[in-house]
């Protein structure tokens, strides 16, 4: 499988003020590297403040990266959207979390779908209407919806329109930023199944961003977990849940409320969640997770661990898997 998108050491800082030492930065994305394979769904999971949305917005060109590279099919796209070519913008589209605010309330759905059809495919008049009806059919909405306004339809239907709009340019990659978080579970189920079907039908690649682990388990090929702007662990979806290695991953999985004993058995031995995610303006030294980590050692507050390959396709950024760990233990034994 070919790599469609690659992030290399990507960083995005925001300047939030200054103090005596100089400007103060919020390090939203702080050295993230990963690859997305053509046709897969890469799940990006994190709590609020982990930088997952900033990462998504940087990829679609809403922000210019502070450092590092974003490569789309080998081409560097580390610039804002207004400097990207139309051919490139056509390829990467995004669906936002809240369809209530991402659709213009003063436009009809026909107009909302019409804009990308004109810009990217040059369709006008009857051809545009036909294409818009085809898009609605793809998301199982009737053609009458062309004349409706977003405010007159339900939340799930709005999100379906937002998905149709993202597909209007016939992209190869779609970034889904919490596409079902604002919806009820019965509606969420429908949207997710539709997204999976559309992916097969149109050969799409998804970067699926969410805070919901049970959702991501059912859509993603691979899952990456993010904490304070850095990746902690990356693995195939099944392995991620069956053999989580990073203490943070284990804490997250054991915090998920589940509905059956079967799932309860799948959870790692109860890792009690403690502490809260610190501010990205003031990232803890060393491994940024160490203040909340139940397994921390002395090295963790000093050295930032590197991403390590622990099994084929399974990466973890934790000192337990680096050489530092055995050294620390020895120190402990002597002390």
């Amino acid at each position: 499988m070919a790599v469609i998108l690659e992030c290399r050491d990507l960083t995005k800082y925001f300047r939030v003020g200054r103090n005596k030492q100089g400007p103060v930065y919020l390090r939203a994305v702080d050295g993230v590297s990963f690859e997305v394979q053509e046709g897969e769904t890469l799940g990006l999971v994190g709590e609020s403040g982990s930088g997952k949305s900033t990462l998504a917005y940087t990829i679609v060109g809403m922000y210019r990266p502070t450092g590092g590279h974003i490569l789309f099919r080998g081409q560097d796209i580390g610039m804002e959207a207004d400097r990207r070519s139309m051919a490139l913008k056509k390829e990467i589209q995004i669906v936002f979390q809240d369809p209530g605010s991402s659709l213009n309330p003063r436009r009809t759905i026909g107009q909302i779908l019409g804009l990308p059809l004109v810009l990217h495919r040059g369709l006008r008049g009857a051809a545009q209407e036909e294409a818009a009806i085809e898009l609605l059919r793809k998301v199982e909405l009737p053609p009458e919806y062309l004349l409706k306004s977003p405010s007159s339809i339900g939340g799930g239907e709005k999100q379906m329109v937002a998905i149709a709009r993202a597909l209007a340019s016939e992209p190869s990659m779609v970034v889904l930023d919490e596409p079902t978080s604002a919806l009820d579970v019965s509606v969420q189920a429908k949207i997710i199944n539709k997204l999976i079907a559309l992916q097969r039908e149109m050969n799409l690649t998804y970067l699926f961003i969410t805070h919901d682990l049970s959702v991501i388990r059912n859509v993603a090929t691979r899952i990456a977990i993010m904490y304070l702007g850095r990746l902690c662990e990356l693995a195939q979806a099944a392995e991620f849940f069956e053999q989580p290695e990073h203490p943070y991953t284990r804490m997250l999985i054991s915090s998920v409320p589940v509905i059956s004993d079967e799932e309860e058995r799948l959870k790692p031995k109860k890792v009690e969640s403690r502490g809260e995610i610190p501010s990205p303006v003031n990232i803890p030294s060393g491994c940024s997770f160490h203040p909340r980590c139940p397994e921390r050692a002395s090295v963790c507050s000093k050295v930032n661990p590197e991403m390590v390959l622990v099994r084929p396709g399974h990466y973890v950024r934790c000192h337990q898997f680096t050489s530092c760990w055995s050294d620390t233990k020895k120190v402990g034994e002597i002390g």
Partner: protein
Amino acid sequence: MPEEILLDIKGLNVWYRVYGGYLKVVHNLSLQVYRGERVGLVGEAGCGKTTTMKAILRILPESVAHIPRGEIIFRGRDVLKMNRAELQKLRSRGIAMIFQDPTSALNPVFTVGEQLEDVIRFALPPEERQKKRIHDIAVQALKEVYLPDQERILQSYPVQLSGGMRQRICISMAITTPRELLIADEPGTSLDVTIQDQILRLLRELVEKHGTSIILITHSLGVARQMTDRIYVMYAGSIVEAAPSATLFKEPLHPYTVGLLASVPKISGGGIAEGIPGRIPNYLNPPNGCRFQPRCSLSDDRCLSQSPPILDVGGGHYVACFRYER
């Protein structure tokens, strides 16, 4: 199961007056909470869970909310017939409520201490309202919810604290004085999953320690399973099913409950079922018969015209569906 009924809601209806008629939201809802019991009220957005709970405390906006029928009996007294003084007592000592969004539940222009001490002052009899005593109770209350550095927190404004800390403060307000019933409206929903886990653990511990009854309102079946003894499933203003928690997850009966359970993504994988087609009915003109009928694949003519009765299927399991008539 403890036998004394603490709260007994009988045939409650709540309507909202809007342009063009009434939104008939809550429809013939009955619900019981026994002393010391943990009850879950589960339903999706717009099903009337919060309206029902606000009716119990009489904090619905009186200009538009109208209760045409029903009784809410709390410790033998009908809340709907209480006067101002009795309501004040109910709210300060009988029932406490924790809201979903701790940010809007706290007043941004007062410090945490001012707000928490206010709650304590009103719950104490007038002769015990000394400053020092109130302050001590406030510090103790923050200790109980595991907030460190209590003096600093009491002097902080809500914006200076994180979402998880604010929710702990709301909980401390609710449990600071002995209450018999705690209503928690989606207490972890606006928080991250690790913080939600901490808040739920804290709530469970406090409820057990004080022997308080709790009604946990949630849209998450997983949260309800982990926190409650008995669950009511609500759809479009009515209870469609009620059962002990373990039974409900093993043997859901109502088509809505079955569909809802199937829609929940599982961490064991295997994909997600198709969800439930359609959406919640328009409350201006709700269906005449079963309110779930338009979305139900198993409905027949009777469901169109008659409201299904609540049927006792044994073992404390109740379901409002004609399919289970014998």
